[in-house]
């Protein structure tokens, strides 16, 4: 749809006349609205736009036979470049040592489901994963993980306890004894505004020394994605992002906000409730979805 809008804006420009500043401005306004309606954060949109204008005012568009299409291409390419990252595989240590993957995020973002999905994926790849039920707050959270663990055939470490840090400590000791090489820790949903809960996850991170601290974010998150991710990144440190519920029809602009504010790679997307519904993150796919 945005390519049609650009075609309309540049419709009356033939190969020999030049594109006016007005055309560029109109096109830029269209991108701005498209990105905002796709839930990309306003400040991120601004930065993106400013850099795009420079390129759009350049030779390529001005001399193009179809400036509208050229414009779309520039925007699309820039989004892909922004989203892309070579580090998008899980950064795990070798199979004869321990790798801890810590999952964190807001309430209901998909952590428990995603931790089981990751366990299944890693098991299929020949690793020996164990799931740690470190959400001791939500009713039936441990049971939920146990059921999912059973579904994917991965052991779940859990304890009758209210102390998540203690459970993680014991889980690490247990995992070493039993030679699991990948320890996936599911944690309670929390707000960055909750000091006690942020302290808890900081402690969990300190004692487990994860190779991956994954922020699980809901694909439908709006403008506040930036504030949230920034806090988690500054206080705990995010090594990667997983965007869940991408099977919704949310445009997923939060992906851009998250990447741009943390600088960390988007690793996977969740595309459903089943354990197989985890896919690698492809920037091209996300970029075209954001552009609608």
């Amino acid at each position: 749809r945005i390519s049609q809008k650009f075609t309309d804006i540049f419709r009356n420009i033939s190969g020999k006349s030049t594109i006016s500043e007005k055309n560029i401005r109109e096109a830029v306004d269209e991108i701005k609205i498209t990105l905002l309606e796709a839930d990309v954060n306003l400040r991120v949109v601004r930065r993106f736009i400013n850099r795009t204008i420079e390129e759009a005012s350049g030779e390529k568009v001005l001399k193009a036979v179809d400036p509208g299409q050229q414009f779309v291409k520039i925007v699309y390419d820039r989004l892909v470049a922004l989203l892309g990252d070579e580090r998008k595989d899980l950064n795990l240590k070798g199979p004869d040592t321990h790798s801890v993957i810590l999952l964190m995020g807001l309430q209901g973002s998909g952590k428990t489901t995603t931790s089981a999905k990751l366990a299944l994926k890693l098991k299929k790849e020949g690793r020996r994963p164990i799931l740690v039920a470190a959400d001791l707050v939500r009713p039936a959270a441990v049971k939920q993980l146990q059921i999912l663990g059973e579904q994917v055939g991965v052991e779940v470490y859990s304890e009758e306890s209210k102390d998540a840090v203690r459970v993680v400590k014991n889980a690490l000791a247990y995992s070493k004894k039993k030679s699991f090489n990948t320890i996936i820790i599911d944690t309670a949903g929390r707000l960055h505004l909750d000091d006690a809960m942020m302290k808890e996850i900081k402690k969990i991170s300190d004692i487990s020394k994860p190779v991956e601290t994954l922020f699980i974010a809901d694909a439908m998150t709006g403008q506040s994605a930036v504030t949230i991710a920034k806090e988690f990144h500054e206080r705990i440190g995010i090594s990667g992002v997983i965007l869940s519920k991408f099977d919704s029809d949310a445009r997923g602009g939060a992906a851009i906000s998250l990447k741009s504010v943390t600088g960390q790679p988007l690793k996977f997307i969740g595309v459903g409730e089943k354990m197989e519904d985890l896919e690698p993150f492809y920037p091209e796919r996300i970029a075209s979805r954001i552009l609608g």
Partner: protein
Amino acid sequence: LFTTEKISDHFFEDLEDMLIESDLGAKTSLELVEKLRKEIKRNTIVNEKEFIKTVRDYLSEYLIVDDFKPDENKLNIIMILGVNGVGKTTTIAKLASYYKKEFNMTSVLSAGDTFRAAAIDQLIYHGDKLNMRVVHQQQGSDPGSVIFDSIDSAFSRGEKIIIADTAGRMHNRDNLVKELKKINKIISNKVSDGIYKKFLVIDATTGQNGIRQAESFNEAVGLDGIIMAKYDSASKGGIIIPICRDLKIPVLFLGTGEGYDDFIKFDRENFLNYLLG
């Protein structure tokens, strides 16, 4: 006293930014700012105080707020629906607690999410804590049949309120929407002389997709109200504004945390105060 020169473009830009960053959406924010520019041109706004008041008035007008008090003389069934993870199950517990505290009415909780792992356990936990009965079958059973049973058993025991949980579902999954329609039909047919309400739960951190959710579910089964959970997050929950304005569905409550008391009736003034900083 200010004139159109005094209200700089900067002023409009700042307002537009604030509305967009509160998730009102680009379209709604721009429309509002355009309306204000026209008012300024017509000199109907003469000072800053009036400007702020006008913004508030417009936003207030967009909001539709309502209340629902169960009828003590009838069977009231409330179906709670929404996409995955927004806070439906927790909201049911809060709603049941609210009706107990405010009107001394006890609810029967219907475990209509027969799909997700430990969904039934989660609701049973709440039922225990609240001392309210939970009607459930085993995982994987037909949600329509659970709700059917809940209505029968509540009716035979003279219970007045049933709050039915449903599985989270994406509004763009046809088979899931079909299932919801089926459940809706079962309830409508069975509660012909009772009161039947359908409340959508949305997450306050949701962006523009919130409108899509409300629109699709409204089209599928018809919505009587919206409850916005997780209002205690960093989000201003501005998405409720285009939902109310465009779809004419009232907002009823806000969820402000994970406890039963973290539940308040939607208050227009407080909401706007917080939104406009």
